[in-house]
């Protein structure tokens, strides 16, 4: 180094050159509003009778985390493969995406996840169950009873399920034709419940005396034995009509029942549809005769649509008045009906149209106008002091707490409502034992999904979902700029000509890619899926990400609010800063 260079080190050189980061400025002091992460309730979840966490399930499915997605369903419903086939999926009607293009195929995705559990051999997803020493007796191994057993077992109870038939499943096994629900699917899901430790005792038809015996051995009883007897039509010649439910039972029992000719099916519920579609498969020409209009039928809309496509005829506004035999044929006399005023539950009342009747010549008549309890002790008593009527069950407490559930109490007689009943019963009984009779309503209310009657077992058990806001995300709260129109996925199905010739399942399960791309369509309303928009856009670099968890650094957040507006799924909120 020369002398000149050495001396330059002593020359003053104070220039505008940075030495430190701007991080010493705590610009958080500028802000007067504070953004925050707040997962909220998706409308689909609130519409689901069992309150499944659908937005989160689809989010996990997109990420290929199928096992986690399945476990998320199993938090709330032990029957994804079953419900993925037979649920009337009100979730899809509530789906915000429906307003954008088409709702997510939530039902098909549930089926995909339910099926993949067995294909991929996902092991028992719920381990280390507690045991509180209490035993519960469950009457009926249908969806309500099995669900009650499933949820109670998870809460630490030992459950004995008593089933009159020689195999469990109830309506799922005997009432739903196999083209909608193949038996292996059902058996797999029942097996998973049994794997938890639930004991199912088949061929045990119980009598009223059981309720007395049970006091010695059980701390409570759940009655989920359903409606065992078809409702009578109260018309002349009624005895000549075939009991539709028994007919379905015989088909599921493997009996060969060749049918031919024209067959009248009286009724408008799901059973009427199932009977008519089964008849098609057996070679007959079914005509559904219904006293109200087609749109008034209690059967699920998509079931009616399928029946019509398969060739089932529906004759509406005709009320049977008598059945007469004419040789090998039957003459069905029908009163013509017309639409009158609305009745109490909002349905259009129908009244006879003058005295006009017509007759229908058929080869057979099937009745399917509904079912009712076969024994009176299965009906919840009235006017006793300790009775609590909930949305999906009724609890009485005399000597022993008894819960009446499933179809015995549900106004909507669906499989998923039956599961909801079992879940509600489990939560109600557990609360009864833990906190007492008077706290049941409040405790259950804490576990509601949004503002709906649906209850979440995850919330009840203190899972992350309990932190979710009850606010139901509306369509206008979704930032639709982040979504491209895209049609919902369509699953492959057996061609109609082929499907109506057998009881094989009609629809195929979605492919993995189909399911993932469909799940990708989900807005994930109110549920952070880690899209990172908040962090990407934050002009203050005030969103931190650690262990996959995002947080606002209020040292620097200026409260601009971009993160909240740019959250595609309304999983953030902004509030005024507390002084």
């Amino acid at each position, binding site marked *: 180094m020369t002398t000149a260079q050495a001396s330059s080190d002593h020359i003053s050189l104070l220039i505008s050159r940075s030495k*430190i980061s701007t991080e010493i400025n705590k*610009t958080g002091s500028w802000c007067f509003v504070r953004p925050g992460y707040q997962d909220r309730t998706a409308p689909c979840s609130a519409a689901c009778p069992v309150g499944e966490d659908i937005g989160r399930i689809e989010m996990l499915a997109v990420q290929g985390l199928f096992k986690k997605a399945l476990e998320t369903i199993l938090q709330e419903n032990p029957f994804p493969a079953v419900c993925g086939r037979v649920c009337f999926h009100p979730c899809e009607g509530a789906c915000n995406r429906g307003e954008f293009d088409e709702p997510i195929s939530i039902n098909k995705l549930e089926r995909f996840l339910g099926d993949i559990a067995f294909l991929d051999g996902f092991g028992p997803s719920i381990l280390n169950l507690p045991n509180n020493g209490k035993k519960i007796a469950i009457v009926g191994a249908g969806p309500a009873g099995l669900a009650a057993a499933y949820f109670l077992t998870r809460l630490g109870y030992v459950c004995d399920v008593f089933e009159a038939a020689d195999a469990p499943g109830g309506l799922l096994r005997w009432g739903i034709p196999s083209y909608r629900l193949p038996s292996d699917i059902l058996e797999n899901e029942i097996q998973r419940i049994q794997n938890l430790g639930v004991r199912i005792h088949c061929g045990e038809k119980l009598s009223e005396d059981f309720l007395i015996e049970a006091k010695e051995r059980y701390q409570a009883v759940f009655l989920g034995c359903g409606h065992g007897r078809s409702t009578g039509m109260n018309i002349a010649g009624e005895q000549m009509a075939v009991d539709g439910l028994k007919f379905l039972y015989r088909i599921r029992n493997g009996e060969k029942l060749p049918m031919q000719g024209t067959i009248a099916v009286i009724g408008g519920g799901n059973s009427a549809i199932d009977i008519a579609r089964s008849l098609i498969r057996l070679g007959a020409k079914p005509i559904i005769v219904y006293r109200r209009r087609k749109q008034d039928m209690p059967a699920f809309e998509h079931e009616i649509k399928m029946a019509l496509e398969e060739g089932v005829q529906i004759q509406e506004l005709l009320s049977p008045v008598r059945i007469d035999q004419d040789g090998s044929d039957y003459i069905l006399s029908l009163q013509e009906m017309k639409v009158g005023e609305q009745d109490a539950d909002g349905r259009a009342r129908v009244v006879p149209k003058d005295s006009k009747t017509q007759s229908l010549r058929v080869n057979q008549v099937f009745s399917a106008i509904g079912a009712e309890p076969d024994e009176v002790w299965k009906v919840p008593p009235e006017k006793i002091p300790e009775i609590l009527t909930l949305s999906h069950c009724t609890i009485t407490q005399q000597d022993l707490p008894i819960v009446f559930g499933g179809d015995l109490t549900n106004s909507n007689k669906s499989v998923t409502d039956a599961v909801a009943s079992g879940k509600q019963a489990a939560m109600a009984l557990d609360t009864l034992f833990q906190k007492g009779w008077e706290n049941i309503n409040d405790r259950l209310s804490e576990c509601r999904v949004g503002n709906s009657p649906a209850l979440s077992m995850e919330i009840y058990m203190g899972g992350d979902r309990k932190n979710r806001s009850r606010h139901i995300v509306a369509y206008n709260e979704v930032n639709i700029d982040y979504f491209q129109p895209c049609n919902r996925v369509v699953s492959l199905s057996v061609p109609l000509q082929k499907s109506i010739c057998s009881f094989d399942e009609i629809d195929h399960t979605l492919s993995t890619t189909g399911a993932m791309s469909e799940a990708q369509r989900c807005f994930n309303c109110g549920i952070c899926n880690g899209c990172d928009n908040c962090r990407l856009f934050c002009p203050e*670099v005030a969103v931190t990400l650690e262990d996959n968890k995002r947080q606002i650094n209020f040292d620097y957040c200026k409260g*601009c609010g971009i993160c909240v507006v740019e959250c595609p799924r309304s999983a953030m909120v*902004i509030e005024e800063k507390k002084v």
Partner: protein
Amino acid sequence: MMQLNIPDRDYLNSGHVGCPGCGATIAMKLALRVLGEKTVVVIPACCWSIIAGNYPQSALKVPILHTAFATTAAAASGVRAALDMKGDTETTVVGWAGDGGTFDIGFQALSGAVERQEDFIYVCYDNEAYMNTGVQRSSSTPYGTRTTTTPGTEWKKTRKKNIVEALAAHRISYTATASIAFPDDMMRKFKKAMEMKGGPRFIHVFASCPTGWGVASELSIKIARLAVQTNMFPLYEVEDGVKYTLNYKGNRSIDEYLKMQSRFKHLTEEDIQTIQEMVNEDWQLLLRKIGP
């Protein structure tokens, strides 16, 4: 972002003094995510000369050369020349100027530098007026805008200068528009520009200014997105001045965009119609260049 293979790292520091919701800050943040640590940023007088921090602070984790207003492209040329002479061809030199420093006072230096084929990326973050000095009109201010120098009934009656076409006319290898509301598209363009070494690359970034435009800060991204969705600010690329690629087709009407901003609140329905026609005309012109 995953498909762009960009590391999840920010080179912007917290604690800078940008206004809440500042689009120009978001633009820098996104750009540097792509450009990374081997970057030198040259900044003239503009909002960013404030945001970047007073002595002795810096808001960036990469070197910054603050330079005089008109000189971005010239100073960036010089930095490039020095790095080249030192054998450093890896570092990306980025000129980072506002619309005033690009469309107006810095235009000559920019034109000169790109004609010389200087090897740098020039970014104009466009907030459509001299915001730093208190919202005075620039040649980037669109028709119909009220600013502090186009006040009252004397709102700006001339069109915004089409800077991208001016740059494309220099036949440089890469000219593109980008928007902070389309981060994937924007970062893709920065990555593309970064990899096209050897000549000038120009990126015109639409950077909303809640303060100057009269928009709530939380709508900063939304308004930038609307500019694209209404074709007010189309997203496209021009290679070698001739090969046009359109990245987004908008279809929304311009009144939705205009009515969200107080800088346009004086416009009558007739004025809005005039602007819509201008936007349509420009859009058709662009489509002709894009070709079939």
